[in-house]
């Protein structure tokens, strides 16, 4: 039972990491980046490829991969956000959405070409700890801790640094923030860089335990979007908590019911939650 709990928490931690990035990009730029999950798959592929050179641990590889994904986020900004900044708000949102879908599809094809249809699977042996008679799988525990630290550092960055405060200001009121000298272009580019970094790290963590397919990117985006919708668009705490809950629900649904019921249960809960939430708001 404790293993199911830990597994659920770990899965939730990865979901949270993934969703926090998507929420960040949406909150600050109003861009729903459909290539977000593909960046996670790219993280997994890079980790798998790196293992041929040296048996990096997933957490050590994260340190190496973080700046790469930051740069990829900047490039992504130039592709799916910057070209549409002169359009009206609604037109730019639609244009960015379609552009990011295009990027996601191109990336998927590139992944298939680059590494074939083999599952992206990395094996990293790590001991099992005995804690008060309970078997704690070390890899999951350490990865869970690393995911929590990453989310914590991202939150600190947003709250305590000038760049982070600029991002939050831009998310709250773009025009007023501009009047105070915050450059929307550079700030939103930084936000997408941070979001891409979180997606890449989530992919590395995910692949350390679960195999990913080269075309799993859009599925991951959908899952992250589900968490963001349920947890609240544009904030970090909501998606982080919802991500954890989703992981726990998935794990326990597989334990108490059948695996086939997991998705049904998860999406039914989302619909119920949204209906109740919307009902309360109307009242």
């Amino acid at each position, binding site marked *: 039972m404790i*293993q*199911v709990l830990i597994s659920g928490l770990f899965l939730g931690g990865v979901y949270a990491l993934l969703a926090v990035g998507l929420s960040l990009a949406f909150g600050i730029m109003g861009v729903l980046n459909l290539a977000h999950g593909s960046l996670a798959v790219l993280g997994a592929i890079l980790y798998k490829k790196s293992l041929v050179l040296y048996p990096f641990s997933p957490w050590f590889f994260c340190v190496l991969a973080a700046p790469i994904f930051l740069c990829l986020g900047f490039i992504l900004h130039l592709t799916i956000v910057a070209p549409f900044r002169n359009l009206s708000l609604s037109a730019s949102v639609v244009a960015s959405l379609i552009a990011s879908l295009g990027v996601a599809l191109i990336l998927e094809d590139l992944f298939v070409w680059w590494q074939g249809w083999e599952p992206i699977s990395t094996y990293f042996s790590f001991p099992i700890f005995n804690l008060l008679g309970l078997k704690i799988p070390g890899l999951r525990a350490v990865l869970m801790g690393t995911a929590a630290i990453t989310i914590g550092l991202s939150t600190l960055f947003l709250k305590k640094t000038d760049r982070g405060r600029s991002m939050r200001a831009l998310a709250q009121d773009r025009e007023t923030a501009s009047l105070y000298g915050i450059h929307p272009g550079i700030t939103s580019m930084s936000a997408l860089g941070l979001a891409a970094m979180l997606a890449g790290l989530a992919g590395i963590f995910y692949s350390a335990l679960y195999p990913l397919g080269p075309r799993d990117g859009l599925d991951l985006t959908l899952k992250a979007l589900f968490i963001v919708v349920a947890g609240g668009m544009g904030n970090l705490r909501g998606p982080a908590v919802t991500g954890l809950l989703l992981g726990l629900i998935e794990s326990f649904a597989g334990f108490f019911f059948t695996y086939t019921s997991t998705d049904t249960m998860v999406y039914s809960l989302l619909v119920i939650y949204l209906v109740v939430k919307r009902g309360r708001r109307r009242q």
Partner: protein
Amino acid sequence: MKTLKQNAWLLSLVTILTFGIVFVLAGSPWAEPPKEIRIGATVSMSGKFSTEVGPFKQLMDAYAAEINAQGGIYVKGTGSRLPVRFIVYDDKSDGPTARKFYERLISVDKADILLGPYSSPVTFAASLAAEENKVPFIAICANSHKIYNRGFQWIVCVIDKAPLYTHRYWDMIQAEAQAKTVAFVVEDTLHPQGVYRGAKKLSETAGLKEVLLKVLPADTHDFTAAIVKIQEASPDIVFVSANVPFSIAFMRQARELGLNPKEFHVIHHGGVFKKGLGAGAEGVVGQSYWTEGMNYGHPEQFVAVMERSGISLDDFPWAPAYMMAFEVATQAIERAGSLDKKKLMATLKKLKVMTIGGVVSFAENGVGTINTYPSQIIDGKYHIIWPPQVATTGHRYPGL
């Protein structure tokens, strides 16, 4: 005016006669004799099965090159040896796509004989094209009973039916008498389900008790709940009936969560599985059609074909089954002495031929006789472990 009408009549008559002669001659004994033997097939070069058979067009071309280097296949009816040409399309691991290409192979490419695609679901769809057009179809890695219970007359399959897929493994377990209980983890798709149904009966016959059954969707990523239940049931053998991606995911988490039965049996434990698990694959038992050291038929020809194709047996363990299908097709053409489809099919039905995997013959419904041997990954290499006359090394229980 009259002359113009007469000319028009004459022209029509000549045209009709010309077409008539062409049609009659095309189907008559005076038609031009065949210059080559066209073998049609699809290969899953892309899609989920590309990990299993992706580069097998190279295998087919390598076999054709080997045969053609000896002058081709002797076809008595033509009085000469004819070169072999494989016509191959990518079915994208998809049944409807495969069926479309088999229809093309029959109608456009005029294939003389067809080799089946990989997997039961894709073969199920593709074989319809062969049956409708009455073209001999040799299925390869497709042993679900659903394919052969349809009363089709134009299909044979090299391998035995799915329920018997692991019978030699259970014979070994019974003979060794060290295991008493088994837990089954089954991927909810056609072939793994078929193998499980057979394994369940065979394990009972071998005196084992099934303590747990977990049937899981093919896209399951997190197996923690299933693994916890298996730990509670504490079986001697954990039997995983699944395709490779599923098996890798399950085994990796089983290792990580410390699941430690006497033995893991994973039906598809080929090179992709071994690479995906690294050291975690050590000791795992599975099923293989052929490993080095087996001496049925002409293994040297198979080794030459593999070398020419550049395909590694470890990475693509289904290559021997394909080789057996090539051998069956070659023998059927030679013995029929003709490329006439009816004669070819009749010859196939009563064929009994030695291949690298043993003797192949076909039951009334087309099911073949080739079966896998239990093999174990020991020091990173595959070894046949049963029966003793074929085994290349002894069986070891890793969890003992």
